[in-house]
């Protein structure tokens, strides 16, 4: 196996909202929705980011500016270069001619936009629900609409779309129609609730864990009790895999490997 690392020029920087940016790279990669890359400026750190778009000649990654490292990245301009490793990990399943329900919360939305495009290419009918804390944090709304999908938007404060959570909207939809497949990305507590509410419908979710090597050797992102490596066997997991993970929805590990327990729901 060879590591896939390259140094690429940022072709474009798109400001999704005040706190979210997308980098576009003019570089052909072979990738499916759900996969991620490790992005670094080789100065301030390196983090995993989901691929949010990928066509024959370019790809993009979307990131929320939350800390020191993403803060530094947000200062980068078209023409600046970064180190990219990947793409890594598993991809969402793309069926053909099925009814698909996409549910995304916050930063989980961008990879689902990539997924929606691939689903439509294969003649699937797509319903999308996206949830945010508040309207100013919404992202990818225009992008979804370009693919012909009008996402149901939910915000905690009702400042955009309807007031409520992704789960509220999902339950309403499930009362009216039964999709063949449900996809979810977002905070883990939300993912757990989507799975619990999915009522026998096949479901795939995108799991996040602290990552270091991203090539399956350091054990940092391995989930208990079976040692499932999110960087290799994840980040996209189906119900059966999640069912084997006692760690899911309970805790994750910090940089030292110590357990950090989740407290309550945010979405």
């Amino acid at each position, binding site marked *: 196996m060879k590591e896939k690392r390259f140094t690429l020029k940022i072709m474009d920087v798109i400001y999704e909202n005040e706190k979210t940016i997308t980098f576009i790279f003019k570089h052909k990669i072979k990738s499916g929705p759900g996969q991620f890359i*490790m992005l670094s400026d080789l*100065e301030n750190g390196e983090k995993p980011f989901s691929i949010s778009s990928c066509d024959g000649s370019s790809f993009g990654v979307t990131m929320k500016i939350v800390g020191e490292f993403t803060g530094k990245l947000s200062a980068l301009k078209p023409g600046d270069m970064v180190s990219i490793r990947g793409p890594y990990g598993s991809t969402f399943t793309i069926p053909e001619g099925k009814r698909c329900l996409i549910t995304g919360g916050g930063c989980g939305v961008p990879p689902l936009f990539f997924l929606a495009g691939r689903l439509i290419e294969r003649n699937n009918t797509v319903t999308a629900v996206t949830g945010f804390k508040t309207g100013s944090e919404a992202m990818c709304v225009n992008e979804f609409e370009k693919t012909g999908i009008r996402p149901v938007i939910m915000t905690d404060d009702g400042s955009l779309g309807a007031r409520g959570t992704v789960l509220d909207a999902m339950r309403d939809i499930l009362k009216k129609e039964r999709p063949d497949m449900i996809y979810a990305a977002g905070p883990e507590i939300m993912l757990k609730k989507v799975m619990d509410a999915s009522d026998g419908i096949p479901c795939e979710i995108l799991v996040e864990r602290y990552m270091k*090597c991203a090539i399956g050797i*350091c054990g940092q992102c*391995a989930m208990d009790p*079976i*040692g*499932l490596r999110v960087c290799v066997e994840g980040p996209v997991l189906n119900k059966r895999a999640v069912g084997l993970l006692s760690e899911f929805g309970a805790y994750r*590990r910090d940089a030292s490997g*110590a357990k950090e327990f989740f407290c309550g729901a945010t979405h």
Partner: protein
Amino acid sequence: MSKKLMIDFLGYTLASPLVLPAGIMGISSGSLARAANCGAGLLTTKSLSLKPRKGHNNPVTACFEGGMINAMGLCNPGIKEGLEEVRDFKKRIESPVIASVFGTSPEEFYELASYVNKSKADFIELNLSCPNVLDEFGVPLSASKDSVYKIVKSVKSVSERPVIAKLSPNVLSIKEIAMAAQNAGADALSMINSLGPGMLIDIKLKRPVLANKFGGVSGPCLKPVAQKLIYEASSCVKIPIIGMGGVISGKDVIEIKMAGATLAGIGAGVFYRGIEIFKKVNREIVKFLNEAGYENIGEVKRIK
């Protein structure tokens, strides 16, 4: 697993001569379980220190034609939490476990060994040779035969578990270091830790690829160095050696055993051939034993 793979090591009978070395996968009980289920006969935790360590910033790994460099920086949740992972592992799986520990003085190693005494770990391994914390701790302890002797002696005075000393390849005389460990009472050696450290540069960004700049070299390029040092060390010590460095195939295991090792560790190989590497290599060993007419892996001895 084939009976031909069974091998004795310090009073234990292992199901396979393959070892998961310190720092690979072993941060959690789940990871250790995964490696055991994939066919490793002996599992090592990440090196545990008295206090938790976040390790170095990312990027921590980078690959090149002959292998990879890494500078994890001894990230671990601390000895207490680390040994809880061993306890959780042992609730489900019987395979023996080595608790790897990292300290900076004989006193710290003594204290770490006291924790291991109260744990479910079967062995204690002293990481005397991490090449990735030079800025913080200076030259690794295993560079000096006196330090090696003092630390092993200190741990032996308290440890109720067999003591394994993990040695660095970056020394002038491996024989002196190996002898010092044996003379101080070490029950086994584990060698070699990663080489160097080394460095890789990104020519477009004009920066080192690793955040720590330098990182220990591992992977296939290590194989000849490992074999030579194990061959030398085993010429002068009687204690068994866990051999590692560039082992990625069944043939590599036979080679490292012929160099003088009893067991063989697989680390970087998990990247090159996937986590299934333990199963694959076990199969390749059995195939070799059958073809070459050996009854079992224990019959493969050090060459002259």
